[in-house]
Structures are given as C-alpha cells and as structure tokens.
C-alpha cells in the first residue's frame, strides 16, 4: 500500500471540497471494499476522506410511502429496518444475501452501490485489466470467466482497450435498480439526483469507469419510492453463504385477476451493471401470470445474451430463477399482502 493521507471532514460539504481538491483521492466509507483494494495495490488514492460517520444514518419516511435512506446507514441496519422488511422485502433480502454479518455492519448504503468488480484479473495487479489499468487488455475474455457477464459486455478482443466482460458485485444495487431508486449526490457544483438506472454504466469504450459519478461527488442518500407490490430477491451462488452471485434476481410483481398489472425485474451477476430487464417487463405487462408468460418474457430479455466460452450456463440459470421467482410472487395474494 503506498503513502496516503487520512482526512476527516466536519460535514459533507467539507468532505466534497477536500476531495475536489485531490484528483487522486477517494472517499472512504465502510472500507470493506476500498481497504482491500488498497492492500492489493488495485486502488492507490493519495488522500482518503472518511465519510463513514459523515453522511446520514437515518432511514426517513417519504410522503408517498417510500424511504429516504442516508448514505451512511450500515447495510446491517438497513436490512433490519422494519419498514424496509415490510415495504421492500426485495431490498432486505438482497442486503442479507450479501457478504457476512461483520461486513454488513461496516459497509454503508452509499458504499455498497460503489463496490468494484471482483474479477480475478482486476484484483491482480500483475495481470492485464482495462478497468484497473486502461489499455492493458482484458485477461478474462479468453481466460477464467465462468462467473462473468453474459449481457452488455464490450467484446473487442483481449488486447483491445475497450474490452471488459466483468460483472457488478453488489446485491443491494440490483434490488435498488428494480425499485427505481434515486441516488442523491452532493458535488462541487451542488446537489443532483441520479435515477439509479443511470448511475451504473456498461463498459462501453471506457471500462475504467463503473458509474456516471464525477470526481468529488458524494452519495448522500438514496430515495426508494413506494412499491405497492410484493417483491423478493433470489440469489444463486457457488456455496450456501458468503459468495458473490452467479445469477441473482430482484423482482416485484403485481397480479390482479390473474393478469400482470405491473412488474419489476432486475438481474445481478450477468452484466457490468445491475441489469434492468426492461424487455421482459414490457412483454409481461398485461399478460396472464402463467409460467408460459414468464418464460416468454425472460427469453425475450436473454435473447440479447452473448455468453462467453465458459459461462453459457448463466442463460438457463437466469431463465429458470426468474421464472421461479415470478411464479413464487404470482402465487401470493397481492391485495392481501398490501393490506
């Protein structure tokens, strides 16, 4: 780990000012990802501005029945919040499916959104990775990529500077994407709101950038609008706990009289960002809530999949768990659950 300064600020605005003046600096939240990456030499900030205790630790009610979640709320606290468990089970379940108790105690809501990929080439500074070291190539494209992306990758050859086939590791972010959350940020130029679907990006021609945040912008809160339908999170992983997703599904479904009135669907473990399955949602609205409809919908989403040599299994895996999750939700009485 190279030399750096550790700074605390009096308030969020001061933290933003500190970081704005430090082009190679970084905010430090719970540190569960950043400290690890610094030890590995992957992240090399020269200044750490500690915001772990700076942003709000409150979960506040919004007028519409939604919640404003302070960026400093620890993952464990958020998962345990009664309102989250009752109104947004998908979010509580996603949080509990991530990491371990110790890490959830430490990790913040804001930091969780900004986790970096766990690709083995990204975390090994001796190997090529366009995300870590732009222009060095992509080790994973023709290497070990069993748990890499099947959607939205940039595949332009191992040596091409745009190639990136990795996934976003967060479970919570997948739920947030399904929930149409809005990320509130404070930057050198003031506050702005970013719909979460616009926060994370695909690698495109610049895999080094995970999000659309600008340098110095600090996540201060996440607004989750009211949902009004049952929801759940299903995660498939290599072992029973404490592993990143092979495939995960965040889903919410509103069925009335056997017809899908509304649906939210996002996939984890399949792309460089939490993948909102908009095509599937579009196909499903107004369709009978049957296994055949669900299968047709998810097929329409996965038509775009471009699996790599060793991860084609994710296509049927995603199909199966989406269908199963939607069937599970459809089997519930929406009106009773909302009552």
């Amino acid at each position, binding site marked *: 780990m190279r*030399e750096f300064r550790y700074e605390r600020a009096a308030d969020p605005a001061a933290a933003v000012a500190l970081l704005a003046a430090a082009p190679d600096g970084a905010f430090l939240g*719970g*540190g*569960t990802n950043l400290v690890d990456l610094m*030890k590995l030499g992957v992240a090399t900030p020269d200044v750490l501005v500690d915001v772990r205790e700076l942003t709000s630790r409150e979960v506040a009610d919004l007028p519409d029945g939604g919640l404003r979640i302070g960026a400093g709320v620890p993952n*464990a606290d958020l998962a345990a919040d009664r309102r989250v468990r009752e109104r947004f089970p998908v979010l509580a379940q996603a949080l509990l499916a991530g990491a371990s*108790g*110790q*890490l959830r105690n430490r990790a913040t809501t804001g930091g969780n959104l900004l986790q970096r990929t766990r690709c083995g080439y990204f975390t090994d500074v001796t190997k090529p990775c366009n995300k870590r070291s732009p222009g060095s190539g992509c080790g994973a494209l023709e290497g070990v990529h069993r748990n890499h992306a099947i959607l939205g990758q940039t595949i332009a050859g191992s040596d091409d500077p745009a190639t990136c086939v990795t996934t976003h590791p967060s479970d919570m972010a997948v739920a947030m994407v399904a929930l149409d959350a809005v990320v509130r940020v404070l930057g050198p130029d003031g506050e702005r709101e970013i719909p979460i679907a616009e926060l994370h990006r695909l690698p495109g021609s610049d895999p080094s950038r995970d999000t659309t945040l600008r340098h110095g912008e600090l996540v201060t809160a996440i607004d989750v609008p009211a949902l009004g339908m049952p929801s759940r999170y299903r995660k498939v992983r290599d072992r029973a706990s*404490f592993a990143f997703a092979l495939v995960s599904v965040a889903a919410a479904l509103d069925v009335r009289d056997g017809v899908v009135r509304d649906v939210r669907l996002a996939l984890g473990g399949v792309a460089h960002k939490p993948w909102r399955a908009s095509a599937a949602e579009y196909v499903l609205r107004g369709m009978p809530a049957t296994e055949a409809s669900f299968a047709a919908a998810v097929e329409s989403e996965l038509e775009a999949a471009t699996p790599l040599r060793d991860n084609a299994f994710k296509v049927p895996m995603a199909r199966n768990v989406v269908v199963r999750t939607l069937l599970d939700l459809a089997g519930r009485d929406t009106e009773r659950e909302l009552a």
Partner: protein
Amino acid sequence: MRITTTVNGTEHEVDDVWAGESLLYVLRERMGLPGSKNACEQGECGSCTVYLDGEPVCACLVAAGQAIGREVTTVEGLATEGELHPVQEAFVEAGAVQCGFCTPGLLVAAHDLLERVPDPSDLEIREALAGNLCRCTGYEKILDAVRLAAARQARP
C-alpha cells in the same frame, strides 16, 4: 497520526501510526493484543472479528484512522476478572476449538449473536457465523457450543 481508542475498557494511545495500517494491525502490533488473528486481510475469514462501537466487524478492513475515539472489544475482553465467558467455556466443552486460529473471531461473533438473540435457531446461528471460516471442525461443534452457551445463559 495519533490513535486514541478504548480497547477492552482501557484507553490506549499510540503515536506515529501510518494511515495505511488497519485496526487489526494496530491491535496486534502496537497495543500488544494478539488475540484477534490475521488470516486473510480481506474480510473473508472473520478471524479478526472485534467489536467496534458494539458491532462485530473485520478489524483487517477498518482503517486505523476510523478507530480514533471509538470503543473496541477483542477476544481478550470477553473474559471478566479471569473467568471465561460462558461462550468461551462452551467452545472448550463442546469441542468447538481445534487449531484455535478462527476461534477468537468466532467467539466475538457468537457473543454478539447471544447478546442480540438469547435463544437462536440453528439457521440464525449459521447466518450469524457465516463470515467466520473454520478449516478444522466442520462447524458442527461450533453450533453445539453456541447452543450450549445459549442454554446456560437461559438458566436463572
């Protein structure tokens, strides 16, 4: 950087701490508290689990500066006046200790669980201890130990 932290009820002050040090490093190398173990440095094994302001965390991922002014309890702080805590006793009695290297972190995690949930289900135990890898025991006796400690604590 100067670090002032209350550890196991005693205020510790150490100087010349480099910003890149972790809380685990400070505990082991600068405060003479080697009970918390260094085994992966990535938060993946839980051997370094300590209480930070009352919550179990992986000390290896807490930057030293983040511990300034906070309260830390390590495995060395679980016993009171030399008497083993019931969780510690139960780990020995149930055969939950083998090589002992994962044990300090497991004890803090189990201690926390029983503080929050006096009579945990097996599922709750497994979930609470999911962040603590053990390579020797196959976990069965660790579950037994937590059940035993819970039963003991339930007695008036």
